[in-house]
Each structure stands twice: as structure tokens, then as C-alpha cells.
């Protein structure tokens, strides 16, 4: 079954290194997203697996068959890799009707005419676009074009499907709709999806594994909720979650017990579940998810802050806080509004917090916070 393995994959464009020594395994039937800011090498990675781009070095295997190896000179062309590719701009052929666009790949495989008709009709109804089969791409809306592109990609029944930011050209409502549609297709087609996006929400909601990349390096490769709960470094912590995680710089005041000095007046005790290697005076960054910052009365408060703004949206309210010069965001659930300029007490009693080394950005460990 299609298990994809990348070993020491490197891609250079002249002097520019797009992807650097990437190792990853994509399990059969998983839904993997390559996530990262633009220019991080995610699209290049996808195109290399599909065979549209040639890696400078490394080995790629699909289904235990080596499809690329720089050392052995193997480079299986894209069409022999049994993969499908959904392009960002759909790449529908403007001079062919919807029917022809979908049928073209099957014609190339020399399918009999009636078989092709059957398959195309099956796909048209699966994607709910039967009534458009004789239209040209330019006569369709963005969402409909998207469906045609998906149908065309699925037509030959590839076991692996690559998608390059397929939803980025759709409006917000359609995007929501297509997200659940893609999840449905993933289940129905029983194939492996590899998906490129810069939208962390898409990655979080769709995938079974997230590969976070930055400047050609893989930052973290884990299930989405693990990335959220235990980010490998400050970059992944910051990239995932909305509103963003609060990253507060500070120093280690003492090591046992571990006390963090976040500002002149705020210091917190960090009790970790496993030993943490820190030294006194070390610069650190504390990660606080907005939903883990609660408002508390004075008895339970671990710190004091002033409300700078309050953004109620009905289900929740995002509050910006000033905690002794440090800006924090907190999410409070319920239809509440807060008075700007008011002093409030903060509590960090719920949730696990991540501690990072400030210099390297790497995760040092997780723990609970209490009053120092």
C-alpha cells in the first residue's frame, strides 16, 4: 500500500536551498499537510514527491518502490508514480469541456469509450456537477471549477493525491464547504492525501499529520493536536492556533523550585512533570495559550493586568491585556464584554504550559504554573 518515504531530500535552486535534508514518512491512507509560511519549501517538497521537480539529492520511495534516487540515477516520471495532483489554479484546459477535461486522462490510458463515459458520470455525480458536463471552464464559477479539477484528478483512481493550496482561491464560505468535502473524499477514495497550505486552520481541521516547515527545514512532524499542545519550538507554537499563543520572555530566577521572572512584578513557579535542564539566569520564553489565561478575583490571581481592548464575537470574547508592560491575549467564552482600562487579576491554573529556550527557541518542557 502507498507509503511514502523521503530520505535526505535536498533541493537547491542555484545557491538557494529550498529544502534541506528532509526526512519523513507518510503513512498509507493518512492525510498529511505540509504547513508553513510562503517560501518555506512546502510546494517544492510536494512537487518533488509527485515527480514534477527533481531533487538535488536524496531518495524517495512510494509504496516501497524507489521512484527517485540521486545516487542510483532513478527518476520515475510523474505519470508512472500513480499519483494525482490538484493544482492551485486548477489548471483546467480552457479549450476542453468539463466532460473532456475529466475524460482526457482516461483516453490516454486507452480505456474503452463506454467505460470512460461511465467513470466520468460517476465522478460528475460524486462531485455534484453533472449539469455542467458540456460547459467550458470559463463558464463556471470558482467553486465549480474546483470540483471539476478534483474530478479530473480522481478520474484515473490514483492511490496518492497531492494538493497544492487547492482552496486558496475560494471565498470563505466555499472554503468551509470544500473542507468537509475533501474530508469526505479522503474517506470515500481510501487513498493517501498530501496537502500543502499556509492556512493553519486548514491544516488543523483536515489532516491526520502536520509537517511544519520553515526556510527549507522541517520544524515538527506530528498530529495536529500534538503540534498545538506540545510545539517543538517557538515558531511552531506561534504558527498554530488563533488567536496566537502568547510568548512571554523572561529569565530563570531559581532552579529548585523553578521560578520564572517574567517582569519586575510578575514571577511564577513552573512545576514540570519531567526534569528540565535550565540554569539560573537563563533567558526563556513562556508559551501561554489564550484560553489558558483566565480572569480571577484577587484571592486566586497570580498576576495583575489592565484591559486594553475587548472584542466580543458572541461565542467568545478576545481580550487584550497589559500585564506589567507585557501584552497578552486571552479568550473568555460566553457573550461577555469588558470595560477597557479596568484592572483585573489573572490566573494560569488550567492547562499545560510550554517553556522554551529563548536563544534556540526549542521546547524545554511542559508544566503547570502557580504563584511564586
Amino acid at each position, binding site marked *: 500500500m502507498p507509503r511514502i518515504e523521503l530520505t535526505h531530500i535536498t533541493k537547491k535552486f542555484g545557491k538557494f536551498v529550498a529544502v534541506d535534508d528532509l526526512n519523513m514518512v507518510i503513512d498509507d491512507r493518512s492525510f498529511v499537510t505540509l504547513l508553513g509560511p510562503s517560501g518555506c519549501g512546502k510546494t517544492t517538497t510536494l512537487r518533488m514527491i509527485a*515527480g514534477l521537480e527533481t531533487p538535488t539529492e536524496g531518495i524517495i520511495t512510494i509504496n516501497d518502490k524507489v521512484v527517485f534516487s540521486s545516487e542510483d540515477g532513478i527518476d520515475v516520471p510523474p505519470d508512472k508514480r500513480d499519483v494525482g495532483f490538484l493544482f492551485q489554479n486548477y489548471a483546467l484546459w480552457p479549450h476542453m469541456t468539463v466532460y473532456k477535461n475529466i475524460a482526457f486522462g482516461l483516453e490516454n490510458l486507452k480505456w474503452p469509450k463506454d467505460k470512460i463515459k461511465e467513470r466520468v458520470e460517476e465522478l460528475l455525480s460524486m462531485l455534484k456537477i453533472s449539469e455542467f458536463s458540456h460547459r467550458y471552464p470559463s463558464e463556471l464559477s470558482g467553486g465549480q471549477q474546483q470540483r471539476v479539477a478534483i474530478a479530473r484528478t480522481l478520474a484515473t483512481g490514483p492511490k496518492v493525491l497531492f494538493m497544492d493550496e487547492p482552496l486558496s482561491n475560494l471565498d470563505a464560505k466555499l472554503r468551509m464547504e470544500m473542507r468537509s468535502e475533501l474530508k469526505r473524499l479522503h474517506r470515500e477514495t481510501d487513498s493517501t492525501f498530501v496537502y500543502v497550505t499556509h492556512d493553519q486552520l486548514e491544516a488543523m481541521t483536515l489532516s491526520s499529520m502536520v509537517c511544519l516547515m520553515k526556510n527549507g527545514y522541517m520544524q515538527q512532524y506530528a498530529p495536529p493536536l500534538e503540534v498545538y499542545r506540545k510545539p517543538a519550538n517557538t515558531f511552531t507554537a506561534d504558527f498554530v492556533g488563533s488567536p496566537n499563543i502568547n510568548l512571554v520572555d523572561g529569565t530563570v530566577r531559581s532552579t529548585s523550585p523553578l521560578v520564572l521572572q517574567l517582569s519586575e512584578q510578575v514571577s511564577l513557579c513552573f512545576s514540570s512533570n519531567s526534569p528540565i535542564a535550565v540554569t539560573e539566569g537563563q533567558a526563556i520564553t513562556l508559551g501561554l495559550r489564550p484560553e489558558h489565561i483566565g480572569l480571577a478575583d484577587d484571592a486566586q490571581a497570580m498576576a495583575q493586568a489592565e484591559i486594553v481592548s475587548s472584542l466580543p464575537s458572541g461565542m467568545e470574547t478576545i481580550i487584550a491585556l497589559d500585564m506589567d508592560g507585557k501584552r497578552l491575549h486571552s479568550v473568555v467564552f460566553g457573550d461577555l464584554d469588558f470595560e477597557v482600562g479596568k484592572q483585573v487579576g489573572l490566573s494560569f491554573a488550567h492547562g499545560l504550559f510550554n517553556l522554551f529556550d529563548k536563544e534556540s527557541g526549542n521546547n524545554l518542557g511542559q508544566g503547570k504554573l502557580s504563584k511564586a
Partner: protein
Amino acid sequence: MSAKSKLNQVKAFFRKPHNIILVVLLVVLGYLTLVPLFTIVFDTISVHSSEVRFVKKPAGSLTLYHWTKMFASGVTSQKTFYEPFINTMVVAFLSCVLAILIGGFFAWTVTRTNIRAKAFISTVFVFPYIMPAWTLAMAWLNFFRNSRIGGAPGLFTVFTGIETPNWFAYGLFPIVVVQGLHYAPFAYILIGGILRNMDANLEEAAMLLHANRWQIMQKVTIPIVRPALLSTFLLVFSSTMSAFAVPAFLGSPVRFQVLTTQMFRTLNGMNPGYGYIMALVMIVIGVGILMLNQWITGRRKSYTTITGKSSNISLFNLRKARTPLTVLLVGILLMIAILPLVSFAIESFIMAPGDYSLSNFTTEFWIGLGRADIANSEPGILRNPSIWLGLTNSLKLSVIISLIAGTVGMLSGYAIAKRRGSKLSTWVNNLTFFPYLMPSMAFGAIFLSMFAVRRGFIPALYGSFWLLVIVGSVKYLPFASRSGINAMLQLSGEIEEAGTIMGVPWLKRMTHIIFPIQKTTFISGYLLPFISCMRELSLFILLVSPSTRILTTLLFQYNEKGWNQYANAINLMIVVIVVGFNLLINKLTGASIDKGIGNN
């Protein structure tokens, strides 16, 4: 990296069709454009067999004779080089200015005012450029030639009784006017393209900020089109500089020499060495102009490429001037595009030149059997075997060249666009454009010197039809490769990749996906070489032999012999074929010559 993986990389490289195309083009074009450059340099410092007598050295030995004679020998240099050189520069500069003024005015009027008959104006205005360059020159002579220089007076003198002065009939003035009119459509297409694509919001924003029409023009419109104007200027300059036919027709009667006519004389005569130096000088200027042009457009690209929808632009209201101006412009167009053809038709039916009375009309020159008292018993052109040979040769040559240049241009455009940014692609891109800079006659000259003898496995080609095919295909490749590159750049790479991933083989991707989508642009890439070749004179004039003569060289010969009626009849034939073919292709596919040029 091990030797094995190096080898693997090479194998992987050549598995991509676009890499194969690039490497093949690099080798072939390198041989056909760069090698000639060296042979031409060698030709300027060697003694040719016709020069043995006055250089006093054996043929083939090295000498600086040509260079010293040309540049540092007082009156001789003055007459052979400096005077024609200055004439060339003056002609090129003035024709350019005229072309841009006329073309720019028409472009502005059509895109920015509410003038009537826009479709008619934009269609007919392109005619002078499609027609051979000497068309207007011949028409000028038909109308304004005077009896002082010899021969019969033209239509103008006959009808008004006013004898035209020499400066008006021959030399600098008519050359500038005719070349200016010939290249005005070129300027019109380039400037019109910019004006049409320019975002009207830019002008509207200025209007909302209380700028008046004049201020908008001065502060917004002109600065935005300025890089395009400069670039147009340079392109027209390099074309007018290397033009041969017009100065040959209008300048020779008063011995007004430019570099190209001088080159023809020397290459065809006793001093090929001089001719090759002149060719070299023109190539150097051409390359300089291109580099300047690339610098200008490259540096300012940021705003020449601004495009937007200018559908709702508020057109300048001409009010009362609307109808008169329309009439005026249409009148000018009829004069430069239609009237010349009428004059050819009339001239070709006249027995004794200069006499336009009805009794003097004859069909002798079209269908006559040939009479001993006129033109050495030459039969009328429809019965004349040498004209039929010329016509079939012209058509055969143009079709073959357009197929080769168009196909190679399309493939090179594909490969260049595919590997854009890589060194290989940049080299090939420059190589495919290089022939554009070579003055046609110089290009012909170097192929003559290069292939007169056997070169490796290539036999001596002088006098062969295939020599013409090679020269033409290389010379017109730039047109086709430009359209090819443009077509490919408009097409996102994903369109092809979508086919690749489905296992559509390369040839099928080209024929079933890429070509159909960009059909019109690619067909323009075939059309341009066809039309250019059909009306080309200077490129082939040094290379034809009696069995490979083509219509244009025949026309030139008849004109030199003073057989005016034949020349006029042939010209009419060429114009009808070229314009007719352009209209036909345009109707059938939507491709047109102006699309090709406009993309330059």
C-alpha cells in the same frame, strides 16, 4: 559527488524535452550566428580575389588595407564611409521621429478619443507595414519623379504641370517620408498596445484630483508610455538603419548613399572588404541599441507592464472636430495604403511612361507575348516563365521558411519559458534574438562567404535553394520565438503539468494542450516569417542565382533596367499576396501580424 551520480544527472537532464531543445538550439544557432561573426571579422582583414590588383597581395593573405582605406584615408574614407554613415544616421533618426509622431497620434486618436471608423482605421493603418518597404517608394516615384533625372515625369507633374524639384523627388526628403510612413504602423501598434493596456484608473485618479486634460497627458499618460516610446524609437531606428530597398529606389538617382546601398555596391563589386566592415559597423550599432533597449525596459519594467481593465475610460470628446478629423485620417490612410496600389495598377498598363492618355493604355505587360521593340521581347508577366518561376520560388521559400522558423520558434519559446532564469535559457534566448540585430544584407553577405565552400559535412551551398531557406529561417526566427515565449509565459506551467501527471506524452501535450490553447499567438509566429519572407529583398539579393530567383529580386532587376511596368506589376502581385494572406489567416484563426509585432 561520484562520477556515477554525475552521469545520472546528465541522463536526467536529457530526459526532459525542453533541455534537449535548448542544447540543440545552442549548438545549431551558435554555429549559424556566432561563427559567421568570426568569419566576417576575418573577411575585413583578408584579401579577396577581386581585390588582388590594388591591394597587391595574394588572395587570402591578411591585410589592414580595408580598415585604413575606410577610416583614415582622407577623401576616400569621406566618400566611402563617413558620408554614407552620416546619411544613414540622419535618415534613421528623422524617419524614427516621423514614424513615432504619426503612429503615436493615430494610436492616441483611436484609443483615447471618440473618433469614428475606428475599426477601419486600425485595420488599414497596418497595411503599409505589411506591404514591402519599397511599395511607398515606388509609389512616390510614380507620382513625383521628374524628367530632369531622366525618364518620364510622374503623375503629379503630368496632371499639374509643375516639375518637382530634385530634393523633393529623390534623396533624403522622400526617403525620410517614405520610411517614416512605413514604420508608423509599427509605432502605432506598440504605443496603441500600451495605451490600451494602461489602467484607466491611473488617469481617472488624476482627474478626480482636479488635473485637467493637458495636465493628465503631461504628468501621467506620457511619463507612463515613455519607456515604450523609447523602446519603439530604438526598434524603429535599428530597422530604418538597415533598410536597403527604399534608399536604393529613392537615393540612387541622385547618388544619395547610405551604408546599406554602399554595402551592396562594394560587396557586389570590387571591394567586398569594405562591405564587410560596413556590415560589422551596423552589427555593432544594432547590438548597442538592443542593449540600451534592454536596459531601458528592464529598469522601468515596473510600470510599463501595469495592465488593467480600461473598458470604461472616458473618451476625449472631439465635438465639432469629430467628423472632419475622421475624414482627414481616413483620407491620409487611403493616400498611403490604397492609392499606391492604384498607381501600380495604372503604371503597369501604360505603354509609354509619362503619357496617361487613354490611347496609351495596354495589356501588353500583363498578357502580351513580347515585342522586339520593348524590353528585349520580354513577355507579359502572366505569360512570362521567369516570373512564374520567381513566384513559385517565392511561395515555396516563404512556406518552407515559415514552417521552419515558426516551428523552431515555438519550440524555443516553449523551452526558454520552461527554463526561464537558467543560464542555458538566457543564452538560447539571446541567440534566437541575435539575427534580429543583423542587418539583412550583412546577414546575407556572411552566409554567402561562409557557405560558398564546403564546410565539414555541409556541401558548398552557393546557388542552392537551401541556402536561402537557411538564411531566412535563422533571420526570421526572432519573430517566431518572441511569439512562442509570449504564448508560453501567458500559460501557467500547471496547465502542462496537469497533463504530465496523467501520463500524456510530450508530443501529445504539445499538440493537444499547449498549441490549441495559444493557437492564435503561435500562428502569428508562422505568419510573420511568411509575410516578411514574401517581401524580403535585401536578405536574398546577394544569394540568389538564376534558378533560385524570387519575385522581389526580379522586381529589383526590372527596376534597375528601367522596365517600370514590369516592376509595378510584380509589386502589385506581391502586395496582393501578402495582404490577402494576412486577411485570410486573420479571418480563419484570429491571428494577425500586428499581434506578433505588438508582442515584441
